[in-house]
């Protein structure tokens, strides 16, 4: 999972994009995706790509990670580009570029904004129950990933993994998932207990201070301009 790497970039980055408010960055992402969906020419899609790429570069992200993240949608869209859109190279390229653009917009968001802040914005629209589940999911994911890593280590050290014995690996993996699940449920009991003791009443209070500074305005205005540019039918 790249979750940990992404999370780390988002939390520890120091660029102006990291400092911008999560609300403006989410808005920008949505505008960019809207632009991707309405863009009808390669040039426009290319423009959006450029825009996102420049911002990602400016954010000082780990480009190797970014590459891994982009390869995934690129690969899938390529399958569609190759098979279904055989009419022309242009259509195929558009399909791929669309997928990559949209992915870059999301990547730009998640590598500069911590999940916590994204949840805080979502909490303005979503019911408390769902936001709480988001927060519990996020935190348990990290705890469970660590447990999983330790389990995998033990299995390897105890000779439970052979690259060539599939059924054998499958059996040990199933056992491992069983152990992990039991641990997780005990953990959820403990989480519940400590949370009620600390006054949890079905709403985890969040810090929601979205200051709108110059950065935020610039980002949103630029993306709105870009969207306008994409929507307008240029007759050049």
């Amino acid at each position, binding site marked *: 999972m790249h979750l940990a790497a992404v999370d780390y970039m988002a939390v520890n980055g120091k660029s102006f994009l990291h400092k911008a408010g999560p609300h403006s960055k989410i808005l920008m992402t949505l505008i960019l995706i809207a632009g991707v969906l309405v863009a009808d020419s390669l040039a426009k899609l290319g423009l959006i790509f450029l825009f996102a790429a420049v911002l990602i570069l400016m954010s000082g992200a780990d480009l190797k990670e970014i590459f891994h993240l982009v390869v995934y949608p690129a690969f899938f869209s390529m399958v569609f580009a190759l098979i279904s859109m055989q009419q022309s190279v242009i259509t195929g390229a558009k399909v791929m570029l669309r997928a990559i653009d949209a992915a870059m917009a999301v990547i730009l968001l998640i590598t500069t904004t911590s999940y916590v802040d994204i949840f805080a914005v979502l909490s303005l629209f979503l019911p408390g129950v769902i936001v709480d589940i988001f927060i519990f999911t996020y935190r348990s994911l990290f705890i469970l990933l660590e447990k999983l890593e330790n389990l995998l280590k033990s299995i390897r050290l105890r000779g439970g993994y052979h690259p060539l014995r599939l059924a054998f690996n499958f059996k040990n993996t199933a056992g491992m998932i069983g152990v992990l699940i039991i641990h997780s449920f005990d953990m959820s009991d403990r989480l519940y207990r400590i949370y009620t003791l600390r006054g949890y*009443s079905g709403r985890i209070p969040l810090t929601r201070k979205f200051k709108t500074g110059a950065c935020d305005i610039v980002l949103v205005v630029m993306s709105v301009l870009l969207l306008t540019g994409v929507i307008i039918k240029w007759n050049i």
Partner: protein
Amino acid sequence: MSHIHLPDGIMPFAWWASAYIGCIAVLCIMLRLINKEEVRRKIPFTGVMAALMLISMSVPLGFIPVHMSLSVLNGILAGPALGFIAVFVVNIMLSLMGHGGISVAGLNTLLMGSEALIGYYVFTVLKRHMKPSLAAGISALAALVVSVALMLGVLAATIGVEEALPGHEQGEKGGGSNTVSFLSLSGWSAAAVILILGMLTEALVTGMIVSFFSRVRPDLIDAPAVFNNNRMG
């Protein structure tokens, strides 16, 4: 396991937008049905379940190019309402991790959510008549058959059948070879074999986990649904 890994920009607007509306509608119904006090008790559990689903989706099964999602198990253990919400959370998190487009998250929630809902209701009926593990396995199979049919239907209707083959990739690296190898097998029969293997695996695992629980934590399986006065079963 039904889950469409499509990037943004491929699925037609009308389809993903109406799926979002459907998804939000189901969420609203589920939120209305739940009993606040009971829910509070199960929220940490649901969060843990969602985290487990995310993790299980990143575990490669090795020989078949699909992955589990544990969404039926999630339905059985968390109940239909919280189960569906967990599925929603999982899909939003997936797209926020750069896995699949934001636009298809609504559709995926409906697909995986249907597994949770069907799995839950079939299980509540079946568990009165047989061992919990068997009941869970059968419910999982039933739910998966429906959701896979739905998934193929959606794909066929939106982007054409030949491409609708589940080129699922696990993790981020290395999955490509799987997809390529199955593409080189001839279309439908290969796809059918893969899907059936995937469904059997998930059903088997669900059954095994439930059997494990009925020995170690029977309370989890007998837990009532989280609804006001049991209005829905």
